[in-house]
């Protein structure tokens, strides 16, 4: 795999805001307690929260899914925490310094305590981070330390070439943590609220052994809440407000009451009877809640796209065929008539509302910039199609598309099939639904023709998407290759453009232009979730990356 080296001096602060999803009523005031005024009175009730899937792991270095991250963050603070707009704000770190070359970060820790009374120290971070890269622990998110975080020696430790003690993180004293990087990473501070970087107390960890994170007695809290009822893979669990939290005054809720509900109709009924304060619903149910002030469409960050297998399927090696197929897609119909959950049609290779450039504007704000190569235009599509068929010397094509066996992708695939078959004469599209694991495997093996897939941003820079289409990248499933493109991306990561934010940004546009002109992928839409949030509740913060929901500032009125 080609290393993702993301060195850059991006001047602008990265902002991971709420993605601009359509649908739903206008967003009510989301933040009330954010000013941090001490409110003496704590509302006596728990917030009842719905989860789609159970927690997979409460071990911050082992967890990989959004649910686990959210719950871990409920009771653990990292060096930084996530502000409402996604910006990193000091948490356990009281202050920090960055060296001039951007390679060394020094964090000064505040006097925070674990729930067993021991203070949170720099050693806790060192222990946790070393676990994350330790091959014996085999954390699936170790790439956050290496590829993305660029912490010194992380790569070599993961590969087993160096000892974990050589990781570029040291506890200068109890309250000072020094981190060394290979290259400057502009968004490094925002990684600090990512749970893989959360501290673990070594003494406590060793005292509970393998059972770490499997019951309230085997987790330690330094955050807003304390876990007081939990079992592995539980369908219901509970957290109570942490009275000893360093910022306890800010926390208004008495506790969090989580309930896993896999059936969205049960979820909505439970919301309607008042058993839940917030819940996710499916697109079909939107008909039922339209016009309700509690209904909101919230950005989930994922870009859904179709990947054609360019290297192995000769039909897709033909640019005209690819162009025809991407232009025959009516993306508005997909989001408005089928998904209905507020997902936004997307005509760019980088989705909207997650990466902000040096001038403060969204990288993909202009959705019409590639309209001559990616827009719904049946006539043009047919023109491309006929030209392509002529080049291939045939008048009929039969193509198979592999699709995840989940509600939304199955729906989208059925519409795509219909749109393609009605617009493009002589085309037959067969759909093959598979469990996600197998679909991913088939795409990795190049064992597919068309694949419907998605990608969520790992960090707030267009590179998290554009980096995928480089020759030989793991996720470049279609094995597209273009020397010009590779050069631009290389220049933007480690090359000459890496230090010039403005020029880098324009070069990234150029790179995106190539991807779109070549129809390397057919972007479809940026996913949104349809949520019900009781009007009694304010201050729940939603984010498309890292932590899906943050409840520290949430307030529930009776």
């Amino acid at each position, binding site marked *: 795999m080609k290393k993702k080296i993301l060195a850059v001096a991006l001047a602008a602060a990265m902002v991971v805001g709420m993605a601009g999803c359509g649908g739903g009523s206008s967003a009510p005031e989301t933040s009330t307690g954010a000013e941090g005024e001490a409110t003496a009175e704590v509302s006596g009730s728990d917030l009842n929260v719905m989860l789609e899937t159970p927690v997979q792991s409460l071990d911050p270095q082992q967890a990989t899914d959004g649910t686990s991250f959210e719950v871990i963050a409920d009771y653990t603070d990292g060096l930084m925490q996530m502000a409402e707009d996604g910006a990193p704000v000091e948490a356990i770190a009281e202050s920090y310094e960055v060296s001039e070359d951007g390679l060394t970060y020094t964090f000064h820790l505040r006097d925070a305590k674990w729930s067993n009374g021991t203070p949170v120290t720099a050693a806790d971070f060192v222990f946790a981070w070393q676990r994350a890269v330790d091959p014996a622990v085999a954390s*699936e998110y170790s790439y956050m330390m290496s590829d993305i975080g660029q912490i010194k020696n992380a790569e070599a430790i993961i590969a087993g070439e160096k000892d974990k003690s050589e990781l570029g993180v040291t506890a200068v004293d109890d309250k000072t943590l020094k981190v060394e990087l290979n290259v400057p990473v502009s968004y490094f501070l925002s990684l600090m609220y990512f749970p893989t970087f959360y501290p673990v107390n070594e003494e406590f960890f060793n005292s509970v052994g393998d059972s770490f994170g499997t019951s309230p007695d085997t987790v330690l809290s330094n955050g807003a809440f304390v876990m007081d009822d939990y079992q592995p893979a539980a369908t*219901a669990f509970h957290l109570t407000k942490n009275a000893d939290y360093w910022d306890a005054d800010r926390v208004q809720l008495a506790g969090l009451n989580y309930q896993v*509900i896999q059936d969205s109709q049960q979820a909505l009924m439970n919301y309607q009877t008042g058993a839940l304060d917030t819940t996710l619903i499916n697109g079909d149910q939107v008909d039922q809640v339209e016009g309700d002030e509690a209904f909101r469409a919230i950005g989930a960050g994922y870009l859904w796209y179709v990947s054609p297998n360019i290297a192995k399927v000769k039909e897709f090696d033909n640019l005209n065929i690819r162009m025809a197929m991407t232009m025959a897609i009516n993306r508005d119909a997909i989001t408005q008539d089928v998904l209905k959950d507020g997902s936004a049609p997307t005509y760019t290779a980088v989705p909207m509302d997650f990466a902000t450039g040096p001038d403060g504007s969204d990288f993909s704000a202009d959705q019409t910039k590639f309209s001559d190569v990616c827009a719904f235009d049946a006539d043009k599509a047919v023109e491309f199609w006929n030209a392509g068929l002529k080049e291939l010397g045939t008048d009929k094509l039969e193509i198979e598309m592999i699709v995840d066996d989940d509600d939304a992708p199955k729906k989208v695939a059925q519409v795509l099939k219909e749109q393609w078959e009605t617009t493009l004469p002589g085309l037959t599209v067969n759909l093959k639904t598979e469990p996600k694991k197998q679909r991913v495997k088939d795409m990795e093996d190049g064992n597919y023709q068309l694949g419907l897939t998605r990608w969520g941003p790992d960090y707030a820079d267009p590179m998290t998407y554009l980096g995928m289409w480089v020759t030989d990248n793991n996720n470049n499933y279609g094995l597209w290759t273009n020397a010009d493109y590779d050069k631009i991306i290389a220049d933007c990561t480690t090359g000459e453009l890496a230090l010039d934010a403005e020029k880098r940004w324009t070069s990234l546009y150029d790179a995106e232009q190539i991807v779109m002109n070549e129809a390397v992928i057919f972007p479809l839409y940026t996913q949104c979730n349809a949520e019900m949030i009781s009007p009694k509740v304010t201050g729940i913060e939603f984010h498309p990356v890292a932590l899906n929901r943050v409840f520290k500032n949430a307030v529930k009125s009776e």
Partner: protein
Amino acid sequence: MKKYVAKRVITAIFTLLVILLVLFILMQLMPGSPFNDEKLNADQKAALYAKYGLDQPVFIQFFRYVGNMLRGDFGVSYNISKNTPISQLIATRLPVSIAIGGFAVAIGAVIGLILGLIAAFRHDTILDTICTIISVIGVSVPSYVFALALSYQFGYVWQVFPMLYNSAEALNSSVLPSVSLSMFTMASIARFTRTEMLEVLGSEYMLLAESKGISGASLIFRHALRNALIPIITVLAPLIVDLMTGSLVVEKIFAIPGVGSLLVNAIQSNDYNVVISLSFIYSALYIAIMLVVDILYGIIDPRIRLAKDNG
């Protein structure tokens, strides 16, 4: 008799070993890996496989697993509840499934028996047809639709029972799931009771009993039902295993922390150890119950024992 039991037990143990091996081989056929394929590179994948011993040949994995299992260690989960010992998962979840399944068996068996008896005694009347229809309707509507309909009516509209399972009021919140689970048992038992009763009622000894002047409840319960019961129990046995080991559908809809949904999640996310352990427990229960039924049969009816002994 002792020899027969011993022989059966030994065969059962051997069968279980074969099943375990088959499960291991099946897992090898499963496409994909338990880990996050999309974002891992080769080094990381290799580290994960090495950590869990998945890089070893199947047979070594198999013997190691058997060895560990004899010591009560079923391995850890790779995915659905990372690194949690499966014995712990099962210890917390199997009792929930057994309780709800047991409740369902009880409801299904009692109602099924009553429906079957009515149908048999009022054979070929409108009552018979009604009982048949009631019992068939129960299995004509897929259980997930039935479960949601129950939840909607009793939980949402009338609010008499909780819509979701909740360990604080386990009994009350088990009612709706158990009722929806019991439908299949009810239908099977009703149908089977009816057939068996018709057969018994048509037999000569019933005629004899009747001609001796025995009538009413005594005739039904002491003579007829008693004879029909043995085959009914045979039908019930495998149903019990099915119910006790949890049902995906009902667990999913009522948010029950049982083993049925665990198995399905595990299959879908390639969590090999969980699939193997749960399947194995299912198989073991199944074989054990069949064994008990067989042995009981042998005690009750010597003819079977002889036939089997010779066989």
